[in-house]
């Protein structure tokens, strides 16, 4: 069983790495998430940071929700700021539930709060930015 998942994961990750089709990227990211493939997060994050997926990242962030995303905290924060709405919502959900805040330094939290306080003028998802700032402040003060 484990071997099957491993082979399947290797194939899925390889395919994700080499496709530029948004439709396929979404579908593969969800499959990788379903299998909870060990190295899946790295490849999904690679796609998230690819300009190609701008405006299509909501599902990709959703696919990350089975992983510990602490190593990608800054990417997540940037996408909450940049949006669009669905992306910001899914990224915000990762901030709430998929970050181990023991791994995030107080300086990083402070920087993120500062960064978001400056850029919180995007009308469509300003509430998400504000909520993220509120949440990070709680974490900063803990």
């Amino acid at each position: 069983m484990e071997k099957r998942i491993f082979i399947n994961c290797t194939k899925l990750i390889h395919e994700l790495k080499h496709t530029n089709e948004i439709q396929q990227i979404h579908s593969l990211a969800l499959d990788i998430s379903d299998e909870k493939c060990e190295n899946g997060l790295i490849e999904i994050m690679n796609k998230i940071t690819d300009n190609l997926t701008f405006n299509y990242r909501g599902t990709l962030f959703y696919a990350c929700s089975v992983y510990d995303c602490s190593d990608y905290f800054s990417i997540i924060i940037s996408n909450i700021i940049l949006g669009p709405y669905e992306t910001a919502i899914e990224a915000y959900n990762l901030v709430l539930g998929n970050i181990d805040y023991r791994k995030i330094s107080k300086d990083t939290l402070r920087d993120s709060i500062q960064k978001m306080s400056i850029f919180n003028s995007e009308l469509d998802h300003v509430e998400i930015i504000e909520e993220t700032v509120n949440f990070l402040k709680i974490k900063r003060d803990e």
Partner: protein
Amino acid sequence: MDPLAEDFVGWTPYHYVHQNPINLIDPTGMSATTIDGEDIIVNKDSKGKVTGVERINTGELTPNRLFVQDPSATSETPNRYERNGKFYEQQMIPSSEYTEDDYKPMKGNLNNPSQFDRDRYDYVAKSGVDYTDSSWLSRFGESMMDDPVTSEDIQSVISRRKLGAAKFTSTLGAKKEFQGGKQKDRDKTIFNYPQEFRRWFHRQYKQSGDKDATKDELQDIFQEWQNMGSPKSRK
């Protein structure tokens, strides 16, 4: 002799915080600096007469906000904030609703106020305050007691802002708890959709390759999902 005079060419040495005491303070007399966000709370009696003004420094770079007591409001009244058993209506516009461009002139040239500054000037000027006077803080409170800013005054400021700002009111639900000052105690908004909806949305409703949904689209889809009896994803 002002040691920083060269930094402020074009300004008379007799001005205070670039004639902008609403946004700036100058505790050392050397140069102006921004102030923390502030909540201004206007209390009224049952007849609607202003009885007092409180100011709470949030200690953070938050937008200034104005809360005016609504004596007729109850816990059932929508869009009211509760504090110490009293209900308030938020009337000031959060600066977060301005775009980045609205702030830009402030950074480069203090002689040329930003849109945000201009709106704030108009807003305070209507309350009868000479905002070029450094004692404006206390006088602002006094003038509010004599002649509080009306909702029409505020509307006239709102109307000059970007249309998107109107969305602010739609994000407020029914009764809200207002603790005053601390962001972490502020309202929860409705955008935190349940996990089951998100699963259904990404795996069943949305087709692979679809563009990200906008706020309005997502709200409509959420409504649709609820109308369908909140089905679980088959995938």
